[in-house]
């Protein structure tokens, strides 16, 4: 029985990732005692991963329900650009501009959700198309970038509270709130059921379509919030920001315990995934390893992490999942007379 507990713990990604991060921390502190464990270094690492972590929270929610969104990187650029556009060209009041940016982000999520849940387009195709469309829109609006944004707007992402930059606080707040909501509320538990078995969820009375659409809207809203925060932090909106972010975020979320099949994962895992990736790139810089190696190393770690998991499950002797026939394909009765 005790052995079962240990194997269970080893299969819990939140646990293994926390241990790995702690180990990395200790080892690096021993190697670079005056460079690594300083408040300055760690707060910089946190600042660098704050934007992606906010996006990762939404991605985790979608992956729990067995879906994902490739358009988040473009939404980051677009929401930041549109808020900046209205502030710069029309002198729009800062909070209103932020709401407009979020509104457009929400609209993109609604469109994704509608086509995936109601029309039945595969999320990969729908959000891949949306990724291109939204990136194009961002380039049209922001062109080479919009600078000279209002001071009050820049303050949002450039202030320090208790020594930490505001984006870090925003990130912690969002992760905290979503962690609580997703693990405990009736509404968000539904994402696990949809990811576990969509047909059974529907027959159990879960409004699958509606819950899915809300998932896409929330993911887009979080990406939009991240984009606006990024513009504020940089003091400029760039149409190229967030390029490739969708895949980095999916990497982090899968490292954090999600499965592409759905039904698995915790919000805290999304944060741990980005922290791990942030630490790896910090270490590479401290070790003066070429930046090209970062992507190679992260790719290898992703394969390793998932392979260990799959192998552990096989060795655990879990009987192979049997093939189950889709009931939607029940053949019509033969008309014989």
């Amino acid at each position, binding site marked *: 029985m005790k052995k079962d507990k240990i194997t269970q713990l080893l299969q819990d990604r939140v646990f293994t990732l926390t241990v790995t991060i702690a180990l990395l921390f200790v080892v690096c502190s021993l190697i670079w005692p005056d460079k690594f464990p300083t408040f300055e270094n760690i707060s910089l690492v946190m600042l660098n991963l704050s934007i992606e972590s906010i996006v990762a929270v939404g991605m985790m929610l979608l992956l729990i329900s067995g879906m994902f969104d490739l358009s988040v990187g473009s939404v980051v650029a677009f929401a930041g650009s549109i808020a900046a556009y209205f502030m710069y060209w029309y002198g729009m009041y800062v909070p209103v501009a932020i709401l407009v940016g979020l509104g457009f982000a929400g609209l993109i999520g609604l469109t994704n959700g509608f086509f995936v849940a109601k029309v039945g387009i595969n999320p990969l195709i729908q959000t891949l198309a949306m990724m291109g469309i939204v990136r194009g829109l961002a380039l049209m609006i922001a062109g080479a970038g919009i600078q000279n944004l209002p001071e009050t707007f820049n303050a949002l992402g450039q202030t320090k509270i208790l020594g930490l930059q505001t984006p870090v606080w925003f990130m912690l707040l969002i992760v905290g709130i979503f962690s609580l909501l997703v693990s405990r509320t*009736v509404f968000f538990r539904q994402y696990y059921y949809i990811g576990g078995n969509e047909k059974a969820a529907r*027959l*159990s009375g879960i409004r699958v379509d509606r819950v899915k659409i809300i998932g896409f809207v929330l993911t887009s809203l979080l990406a939009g919030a991240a984009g606006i925060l990024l513009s504020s932090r940089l003091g400029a909106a760039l149409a190229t920001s967030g390029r490739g972010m969708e895949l980095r975020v999916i990497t982090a979320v899968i490292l954090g315990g999600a499965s592409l099949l759905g039904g698995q994962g915790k919000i805290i895992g999304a944060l741990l995934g980005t922290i791990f990736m942030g630490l790896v790139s910090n270490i590479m810089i401290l070790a003066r390893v070429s930046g090209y190696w970062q992507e190679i190393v992260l790719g290898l770690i992703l394969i390793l992490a998932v392979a260990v998991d799959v192998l552990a499950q096989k060795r655990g002797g879990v009987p192979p999942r049997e093939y*189950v026939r889709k*009931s939607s394909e*029940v*053949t*019509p009765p033969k008309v014989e007379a």
Partner: protein
Amino acid sequence: MTLPRLHIKNISKSFPGVKALVQVSLDIKKGEVHAICGENGAGKSTLMNILSGNLQADEGAIILNNEEVKINSQLEAQSLGISIVYQERSLVESLSVAENIFTTNKPRNRWGIIDYRKLYQETQSLLDRLQLSDIRPKMQLEHLSAAKQQMVEIAKALSQNPRILILDEPTASITETETHILFRIIQDLKADGVSVIYISHRMREIFEIADQVTVLKDGKYQGTMDVNATDVDEIIRLMVGRKLVKQDYLSDEQDEIVMEVKELSSYRFRGVSFKLKKGEILALAGLVGAGRTEVARTIMGADPLLSGEIMLEGSKVKINHPRTATNLGIGYLPEERKSNGLFLDMSVEDNIIAACLSHAAENGFIQPARVKKIAQELVQKLRIITPSTRQKVNNLSGGNQQKVVLAKWLLRQPKVFMVDEPTHGVDVGAKAEIYSILKELTHQGVSILLISSELPEVLAISDRILVMWNGQITAELSRDEASEEEIMHYASGTKIMFT
């Protein structure tokens, strides 16, 4: 000493928390039909998976023709002459019948290119042998009914020219006619010296076709008997360890009408009307594909309704999503529990609260302690065998899985409960328990619509019986006037009561 063709020696296999097989030994002789019985979870499927190479035993040996063999994959099993037909279908629906039958052993010409003419010829001769005159080799599999697909599965196993053929519940989804054809083929195979291992819950079939019968219980060998020297009672006693008392499943039917449907029609059925009384069990009997499941799914709001109305306690209701149905007090235990009823990778307690999340919550926040308490109560009440309520449902046996789906709906306390093949692939012991749960519900005033293809079940527990054929209701029979023959006539369209 010469050993029989297949000698299974002291095989053991464990999964986390479960001993699936404990020191099981078994002999299969040349040209015999050897039935294996046992409750769900008794280890039959595990043993067959070991023989067909999908699982490896922890201990023990498989001795085939006096030689010890290691079977590491299904392909190796095939090359040793062992073929298996699974309970669940293993076919690709988007491919043709011929391509499904010859998956790895397609005939090739000398350049290694598939010889389609020969492929279709060989498929046709296999189909002829199985008397499947309405299936063509080029037909796409998804256009076939469930029963025909099962026959294609059998044809696939026969295409490998097995010396040992394993059939795991082959008749679960086929009709009487096809069962007769299957039995004739088994006789032919037997005459050719092929050994058949036959797994079934249906006693009548075992006594009709088998020579020997072996009983497993909780992963342990209980004994092997000659079918001529045993009877149903003895086998059931060995399977469940107790004598099954035939209960009288009379329900508490009242005159009040709870649900009435008028002239319901959809793409799969037409003009379906019936009244469901409070506390009664109304059966929808018929063959697979008659449209019974579709009626239930339409009432549940899972499939679109074309015309007709549903009255619930006297007032007309409009149901366009299962959520509406559950809120109105309608529950549906779907057929094929694995694909429609269960969240396999989730725990027993998560499954139990799935239809009733708010029941376990306060102000929208789920209370883990309450979830646990609710789940434990239902696990005890329904006698679900599981090490804990946190166990993944995937690790439970079929009967226990079905009880988990039942528990989910009991928690929801429906007024109208539609149960679709509630005992499909469930062992005798669990069957009796499910019947008494349903009976208990009728005493509490719940009305049950029972969809079942098992006639003895329909006759034993329902008050009234509706028979469906080809998308329409062909008869209404009372419990007293119905017989298996009578129902079969209406179910196959040879007799129609209404016009």
